[in-house]
């Protein structure tokens, strides 16, 4: 029951955002058509274009048309590329997904143990380092960090490539996630190539979230480790490993899960910058370009898709939340 109501909630949110973006994009000043057609466009050309795009009809009609188009999977034609936005988005989405997922995973895989160690070895070197990192990690301007990393790793040390997703041919297309596809087809060289290219942008994107996750895990673990059941388990001789990673972490993790839910949209925002600096062919870069070009349909389309993703992620984390804490399941 609750599941259904949350689902309904999700859909309402998406609908609402779509209306808002739709209206916003058409209501505010700025003339994309003129910009798209270029300086020399005559008024007739502009008007003809507008009629073609259906821009002369009232707003509600435009929206209805748009909604109907959505059901078919058409987001409307883009102004920058002569294709439907839906197609462009579909094509470029995996790149961004791969980037964001890898960064998130890196942040979690590194951040959680770091946070635990910081909590169990309070005031030790790792704790102090992690506290320092928590402060500085979130203070780096992502675009600057990206550039500096490019300089350092790419130019100065020539360790990793600093632009693009692949140097050689991409693996066969199954999911669009190069790492996954490469593994599925046993294409090890493509795997290595893709991984190589992922290193720098992933690092940049993971910096902030890593700092926040470490900090959150650390403080929730500290709270948890002070609880009576921890000293009880120690008193009866249970091993530290079990106490930290199974018992305490299970209870402490819910806040971190919430944080991850929060971080996802922020990371997507970060992708807008990282993709630009690293020339990553993802949806975020397309989004940034389309915003700058006032490409109506593209803006709405990208925002919708981004929204959809965030909402789905939130949904999943909420489900995980109640799986972690049986009290919610039993009482809710």
């Amino acid at each position, binding site marked *: 029951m609750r599941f259904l109501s949350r689902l309904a909630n999700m859909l309402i949110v998406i609908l609402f955002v779509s209306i808002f973006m739709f209206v916003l994009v058409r209501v505010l000043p700025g003339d994309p058509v003129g910009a798209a057609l270029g300086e020399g466009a005559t008024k007739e050309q502009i008007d003809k274009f507008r009629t073609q795009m259906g821009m002369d009809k009232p707003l509600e009609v435009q929206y209805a048309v748009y909604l109907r188009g959505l059901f078919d999977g058409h987001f409307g034609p883009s102004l920058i590329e002569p294709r439907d936005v839906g197609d462009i988005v579909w094509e470029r989405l995996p790149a961004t997904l791969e980037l964001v997922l890898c960064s998130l995973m890196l942040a979690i895989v590194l951040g959680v143990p770091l946070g635990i160690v910081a909590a169990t070895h309070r005031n030790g070197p790792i704790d102090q380092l992690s506290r320092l990192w928590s402060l500085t990690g979130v203070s780096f301007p992502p675009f600057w960090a990206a550039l500096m990393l490019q300089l350092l790793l790419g130019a100065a040390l020539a360790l990793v490539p600093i632009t693009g997703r692949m140097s050689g041919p991409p693996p066969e297309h199954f999911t669009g996630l190069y790492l996954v596809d490469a593994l599925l087809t046993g294409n090890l060289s493509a795997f290595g190539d893709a991984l190589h290219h992922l290193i720098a942008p992933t690092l940049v994107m993971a910096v902030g979230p890593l700092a926040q996750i470490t900090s959150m895990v650390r403080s929730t673990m500290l709270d948890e480790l002070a*609880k*009576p*059941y921890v*000293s*009880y388990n*120690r*008193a*009866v*001789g*249970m*091993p530290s*490993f*079990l106490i930290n990673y*199974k*018992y305490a972490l*299970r*209870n402490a993790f819910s806040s971190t899960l919430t944080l991850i839910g929060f971080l996802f949209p922020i990371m997507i925002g970060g992708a807008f910058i990282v993709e630009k600096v690293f020339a990553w062919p993802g949806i975020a870069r397309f989004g940034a370009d389309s915003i700058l070009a006032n490409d109506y349909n593209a803006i709405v389309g990208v925002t919708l898709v981004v929204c959809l993703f965030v909402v789905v992620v939130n949904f999943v984390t909420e489900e995980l939340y109640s799986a*972690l*804490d*049986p*009290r919610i399941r*039993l009482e809710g």
Partner: protein
Amino acid sequence: MAEPVVRLTSLRVDFHTADGVEQVIRDVTLRIDPGEIVGLVGESGCGKSVTAKLLLGILPMPPARLKNGTVEMFGRDLAMLGAVERDTLKKHVAYVPQDPSAVLNPSFTIASQMIDMIVWYESDRRLLEYFRRRHSKRHVARAHDFAAELLGKVQIADPDDVLRRYPVQLSGGMRQRVLLAMALSGRPKLMIADEPTTALDVTVQKRTIDLLKDLAQREHLAGLYITHDLGVAREICARTYVMYAGTTVENGPTAELLDRPLHPYTRGLVEAIPSLAGGLPHAIAGQVPDYLSPPPGCRFAPRCGEARDLCRAVPESVIREGRREVSCWLYERETVA
């Protein structure tokens, strides 16, 4: 005579805090023989729990430091043992803490927590062995059966049902019984109970105490029973130690101790109990001393109605009187001719 299960000798423990050094345990001497339940009574702040935590190995040793004395368990001097060996001994100690609700992890079923413990004890502290067994259906089933058996021993009617539940779904009395069952999972020889009935309803308290007594007898457990309730001590403890401000001031067979208290503090405690016979209880005037700068002599002297200059200046020594011991200068005078 068989070796005592626990022997603390002239224990002195200091706490190094930011405010200074707190001399929390000044002189504790205590002995528990096999099969006997020994009580430790005293008011809040006297150091009972610190002693218990020391025995349980959960006293954080950086702020706390053992300044003097020995701690022997099962005949072994704990100071001589490495950390791993000390942890291995924990299996033989059944810990019954004060608040069962706080001590059970709310996110795991009873079965999960009990099986974890049982399998861990079985694996003899080897992590890899533990993981292997924990994921082997056969071992888990066996552990499950053993858990059910233990729950039966604590008089839980439907063990399988309880095993399936989460702590939040059980009543307070049930949880305490589950804890007792968990305490038995390592086949312990010693029980350390730290005010186990304080957090329970009065009606449940009596049942729990009877259960504890029963278990101790059947499983041949020695025990240290910490309480501030003299009545409970009388019920369950063969011998009792009275503790004040970090010192064991008196000890002896419980009934004798409470009927004929020697130390002025014990007398004060006994008189503080309201009785049906008559009169309001007399509280003991004064407060527990400041551990940062405790009095040089007997720590009870500031509150003692019979204190003399000697008491205030010199720490008292232990005087034996048959099966009883008392640390008080009042009795010294009587034995010196």
